[in-house]
């Protein structure tokens, strides 16, 4: 194999955020003229590596090389100067400026930018349009055109196709082919393995913050890529909380029929019964955030309907959903907390969600709050301000307020993200207990290993659609990850 000198490489890159280790040690090499895929399950460290290569964050240890020279990127501009242009997962444009004003901030020749826009079939884009008024897919293309217009040696594309329609993705692939023809390199971070097989030459696979495999895509199939991404089975933390029995015998508590929201959620149908925990599995950016927003009343679907207890409901706001007993534990717990208020007031907020209860505080409020604190064993040593609690305790407060207020269907979005094992165990045990008492629970989690242990059934979402349903008891990390990549699961 001719060993071309590396255009971009890293040795032993490591990065931690406080106690959370994102990258343990990554060796990564991009040759000139190659399209290189960076693969890994959620939390493998892909985005952190991109941020380090883009100069947004600096590594704790390890070295980045460009053309064999050690380099140091204290700021994003240094990475750009070294010939690395990045398109991040979220558009890096200022929303209340126009496209051309955004362009002026980055010292890119407008003519070149417009030329690249033409490449993406956006030649007629109004450059005086405000960024916040443009749809997300257009913004991704604008971001990409801006990155290419810098004329970099390496393009870093983080989930570039996630928000794009199929024909827009085709244009990106055409660009990548052309780019390769110029002898330039690109790094593609994606969950869509079909894309990897089609446009990438090699793939580096990350797992738990390490590079575990380097694969020539021509020599493998998609299934082998998934196998390479799977590590040793993760030790289960919720084994003892698993209860089999009468789960899923109840009525349909919450049902979705043909739910659609732009191209993010497409024709999603499923039902959760009382007493059942329905797991949702999806890789990042497959529309699961939007699905939870639709179910919790934060947004309205463009088509399809939501049924509660068999009756069609129209949620105009979270108020309507909560009145119907459908409550949300959001993925970002800070969204649901009142940081400067005490635990007690945080837990009691939903009590006052109807104007009739504004005058007064229920007599049993202290008991209800105390019961929730007790049941969740919330550490109340720093109870005067929720901001001082640990992440795990904050998450318990977010769940606890629905114990105080009462609910029928609980929508849990990744409730154990960034939480210690002990608290995880407690939360899973609580979810099982709630289900045993008749609650319906929809649980999205990014930790596939937990699914078989906590859930009764699982649906898998890929590119906005439900692509598979499995019984949790027989689901494995491998079968779930395979399905989550949009592949057929071998029976």
């Amino acid at each position, binding site marked *: 194999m001719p060993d071309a000198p590396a255009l971009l490489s890293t040795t032993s890159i490591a990065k931690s955020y406080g106690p959370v280790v994102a990258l343990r040690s990554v060796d990564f090499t991009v040759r000139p003229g190659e399209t290189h895929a960076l693969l890994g399950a959620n939390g493998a460290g892909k985005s952190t590596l991109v941020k380090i290569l883009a100069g947004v964050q600096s590594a704790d240890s390890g070295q980045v090389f460009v053309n064999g020279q050690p380099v140091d990127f204290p700021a994003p501009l240094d990475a750009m100067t070294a010939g690395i242009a990045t398109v991040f997962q979220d558009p890096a444009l200022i929303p209340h400026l126009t496209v051309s004003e955004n362009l002026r901030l980055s010292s890119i020749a407008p003519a070149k930018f417009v030329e690249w826009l033409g490449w993406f079939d956006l030649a007629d884009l109004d450059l005086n349009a405000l960024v916040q008024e443009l749809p997300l897919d257009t913004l991704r293309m604008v971001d990409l055109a801006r990155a290419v217009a810098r004329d970099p040696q390496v393009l870093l594309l983080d989930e570039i196709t996630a928000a794009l329609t199929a024909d827009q993705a085709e244009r990106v692939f055409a660009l990548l082919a052309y780019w390769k023809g110029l002898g330039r390199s690109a790094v593609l971070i994606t969950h869509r393995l079909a894309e990897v097989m089609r446009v990438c030459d090699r793939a580096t696979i990350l797992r738990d913050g390490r590079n575990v495999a380097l694969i020539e895509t021509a020599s493998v199939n998609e299934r082998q890529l998934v196998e390479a991404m799977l590590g040793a089975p993760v030790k289960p933390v919720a084994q003892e909380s698993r209860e089999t029995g009468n789960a899923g015998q109840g009525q349909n508590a919450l049902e979705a029929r043909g739910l659609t929201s732009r191209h993010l959620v497409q024709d999603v149908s499923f039902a959760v019964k009382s007493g059942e925990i329905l797991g949702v599995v999806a890789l990042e950016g497959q529309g699961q955030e939007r699905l939870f927003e639709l179910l919790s009343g934060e947004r309205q679907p463009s088509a399809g309907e939501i049924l509660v207890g068999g009756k069609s409901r129209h949620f105009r706001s*979270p*108020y309507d959903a909560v009145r119907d007993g459908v409550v949300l534990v*959001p993925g970002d717990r800070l969204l649901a907390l*009142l*940081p400067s*208020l005490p635990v007690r007031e945080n837990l009691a907020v*939903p009590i*006052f969600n109807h104007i009739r209860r504004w005058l*007064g505080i229920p007599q049993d409020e202290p008991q209800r709050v105390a019961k929730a604190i007790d049941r969740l064993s919330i550490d109340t040593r720093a109870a005067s301000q929720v901001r001082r609690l640990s992440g795990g305790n904050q998450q318990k407060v977010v769940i606890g*307020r629905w114990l105080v207020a009462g609910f029928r269907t609980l929508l849990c979005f990744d409730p154990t993200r960034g939480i210690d094992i002990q608290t995880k165990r407690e939360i899973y045990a609580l979810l099982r207990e709630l289900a045993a008492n008749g609650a319906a629970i929809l649980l999205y989690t990014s930790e596939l290993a937990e699914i078989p242990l906590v859930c009764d059934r699982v649906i898998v979402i890929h590119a906005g659609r439900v692509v598979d349903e499995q019984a949790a008891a027989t689901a494995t990390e491998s079968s779930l990850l395979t399905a989550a990549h949009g592949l057929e699961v071998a029976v």
Partner: protein
Amino acid sequence: MSQSPAPTTAKNAKSIGLTFRLLAFLAAHPTLILLGVLAILVLVAGNIRPSYLTVAGLRTTLLQAAPLGILAASQTILMLTGGIDLSVTMIATGAAYVTANQSPNGAAVAILFGILVGLVAGSANGVGVAVFRVNPLIMTLAMSGILLGLFTAWTQTILQGSTQVGGLIKTVSAGAFWDNRIPYSVVVWAVLSLLLIWLLRRMGWGRLLYATGDNEVAVRLAGVRVWQVRISAYALAGVLGALAGILLAGRTGAVDLQLASTFLLPSVAAAVIGGTSIFGGVGGYAGTILGALILSVLNSILTFLNVGQAIQQVVYGLIVLALAWGYAGLTRRG
């Protein structure tokens, strides 16, 4: 100072420990600091003019503090939600005008119409902020301009006639009982204060005010319709502004378009001094009461020193700036 070194050190250590504990105690009970400041200011005023420390002297301060305290109540309620009302003094003036105009129909009708002005203008502020998402500063500043324009025109047309308020309102606003010791207006203020503190501390509505100011998204996700909280807060702030305006009208007996305008900055300052954060979620009305009293005593001192109205406004402005700066520093560190 002929003590041997060792005991001195021990004594110092002990006194440092005491000082530290005292400071920690004060930090936990900021109202005590405000009470201390108030007491010092009263003594300073008494020192400058001994007659201040008499019933008559203190009564003047209380007469001044009552309308200010009620206007500051509007600001406290709104600042807790992260809002503010720059139109509150124009609402007060407008309400006073309408009350004066309706005075020939009897005090009850007059007061009712005055309160109605506050309710309508306050609710309009609330709808602008909560439903149309206008920034509170812009919304209430615009409302202030609109009200000024309307009342300037109306005093020439539909509000022509009485600019005097009736006997009962005058008595309640400027009169006093118990040998002329306690002004009626202070009783009005005290009743309103108890009501407000009860609303803020013991009612679900009060909880929601704090919660909305702390994190509006969390409140919405809890199933609360936040627009209802905001509109009700602005409406109540408008009503309180109207009541303050009626008291001011009764104090002077007649109304004009500048009736309440000098109270705008002090009304914000009183709430800020009392520990209510401009950023929402933190504070309470008890502190604002002390803030209003402190500003009123300060006003008396400045008057004794023959400092004009202009300089007084400068002083209020500096107080707000200094405290806002202090809070910003605290938030950064926290």
